[in-house]
């Protein structure tokens, strides 16, 4: 069954066509890759799915539900969580706070929370507990109280992931998760992503530039260029696909040995 269905999506920026009738089907339980050269439209599509971007034509359906009239703050309640390219943490906050904010959609009654009513306090305690477990899972327990802006880059990446997973999503959108990472960090993150997918049964959609990650974790990949589909298949298949090679030929092929 497909968790996410994208059909004929078009996005225009003034005179520029960013997406020109893009299709994509993400099967439930998979790790799906979305790749393409710079300017291909991957980020635009990504933003359409997470509703930060409006689309002119086409449809995006999640579990059969049309997303077009939802705002960016609505999708998490459907189970779609995302990370950001180059990390977008709440810099002045601690690791714990970042994870807790990630669980905002599970806050319950805001009034009860604000006034510290018993139900609110109970909910807060439950959230705390879940945050602790999340931190443990990502090896962040020692830095829970530290301001995230002081953490090393690798830790920040983990906080970003932990925060996205805190709301227990069914679809996790990862926006270039290994941007800026060295080989070891990339390997670590690959393992984490696979664990998330297998153990927590979370479908993952990865937008990535780095082929080594795509090869390591993705079950299936869609390739875009100039806002259109140019290939689809397993990482092995698309890497040898002539259209894909040609699309990337104009720039240094981002494959690491």
């Amino acid at each position, binding site marked *: 069954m497909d968790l996410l269905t994208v059909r004929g999506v078009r996005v225009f920026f003034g005179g520029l066509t960013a997406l020109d009738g893009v299709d994509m089907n993400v099967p439930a339980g998979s790790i799906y890759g979305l790749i393409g050269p710079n300017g291909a439209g991957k980020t635009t599509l990504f933003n359409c799915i*997470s509703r*930060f971007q409006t689309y002119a034509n086409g449809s995006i359906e999640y579990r059969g539900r049309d997303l077009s009239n939802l*705002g*960016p*703050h*609505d999708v*998490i*309640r459907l189970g779609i*969580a*995302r990370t*950001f390219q180059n990390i*977008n*943490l*709440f*810099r*002045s*906050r601690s690791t714990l*706070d970042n994870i*807790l*904010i*990630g*669980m*905002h*959609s599970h*806050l319950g009654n*805001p009034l009860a*929370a*604000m*006034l*510290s009513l018993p139900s*609110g306090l109970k909910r*807060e305690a439950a*959230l705390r507990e879940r945050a602790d477990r999340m931190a443990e899972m990502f090896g962040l327990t020692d830095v829970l109280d530290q301001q995230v802006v002081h953490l090393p880059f690798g830790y920040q990446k983990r906080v970003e992931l932990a*925060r996205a997973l805190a*709301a227990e999503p069914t679809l996790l959108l990862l926006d270039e998760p290994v941007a800026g990472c060295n080989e070891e960090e990339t390997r670590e993150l690959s393992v984490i992503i696979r664990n998330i997918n297998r153990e927590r049964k979370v479908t993952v959609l990865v937008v990535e530039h780095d082929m080594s990650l795509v090869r390591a974790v993705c079950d299936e990949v869609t390739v875009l260029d100039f806002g259109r589909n140019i290939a689809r298949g397993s990482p092995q298949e698309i890497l040898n696909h002539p259209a894909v090679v040609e699309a990337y030929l104009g720039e240094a092929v981002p494959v690491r040995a």
Partner: protein
Amino acid sequence: MSERGWQLTLTVLAFGILLALPAVIPSFYASLLAFTFAYVIAAVGVNLLTGYTGLVTVGHGGFFAIGAYATALMAKHLGTSVVPGLLVGAVLAGVIGFGLGMICLRLGGAFLAIATLGFALAVGAILNNWPVFEGREGIQLGKNSVLGLQVKDVGFYYVVLVVMALVMLASWSIIRSGVGRAFVAMRDSERAAEAMGIHLRLYKTLAFSISAAMTGAGGALFAHHNRYVSTETFGDAWLSVDFLTAVVVGGQGSLLGSALGAGFVVMVPYYLGELRDFAYILNGVALIAVLLFAPEGMAGVLARLFRRIHRRCAQPITRVVNQVSVGRG
């Protein structure tokens, strides 16, 4: 004791002192403090919006005025007492704050500042020009009565003290909660906040309303304390600027900061009285000094000092323990 423990203890101690104070100080000091408490309440409201949610307001004098005039007009024409006046003032300010929040949704930084300033000046202009508000002549309020009892100066001190404590408690509760986290998330990154499910429109207007209601409450109490309102005080932007100064000098995002900042903003003109020019200069110097040398404000400086003392006190014990264990090994 842990840092949290000390925070709680010192807070309780401070309030204890404030409760006992009228017994040992002359009544005009108690009156001055009550005046200050009203400012503190307003500053707590401003701090919630500016220091915490990151939405800069140079217009909360408008809400202070709304609270003050609401209760003044009610007292004059309907003969109502403090409590209903306070509630109406706060609620009215909150509702208008909601409206202003809606208008200012997409504004940030300089644009938000001018919109809020515009709001305050518009309120001032309305107060000055519509006869019902009696402009510079002002409105006299009768004797204060709370819940049926006549309350005089010292009694009113306690009224304001209680409301201040409640407002601070509410602010603290909000900040510690998920709602408070949503506020600060919006400040740090609106995009990420939205991705987490934080509805910007809802939470921004919520922050505006709560903040406005608190400042309105301060205004209502201010009116009852002085038993007089006039556009001399409320007709321009100085109050709004005062509140912003209080928050910055006292410490953004800090309850203690609101208290210290409000105290500063009240005491400087009070003690420099005739020397208004020096009051201005002192205000300016304090602002700049804080921004250059102590951006976390007076509260931040005190917190750092406290932490250093706290660590120093804890040290001797660990040193002894280490020595003992080294000796054994």
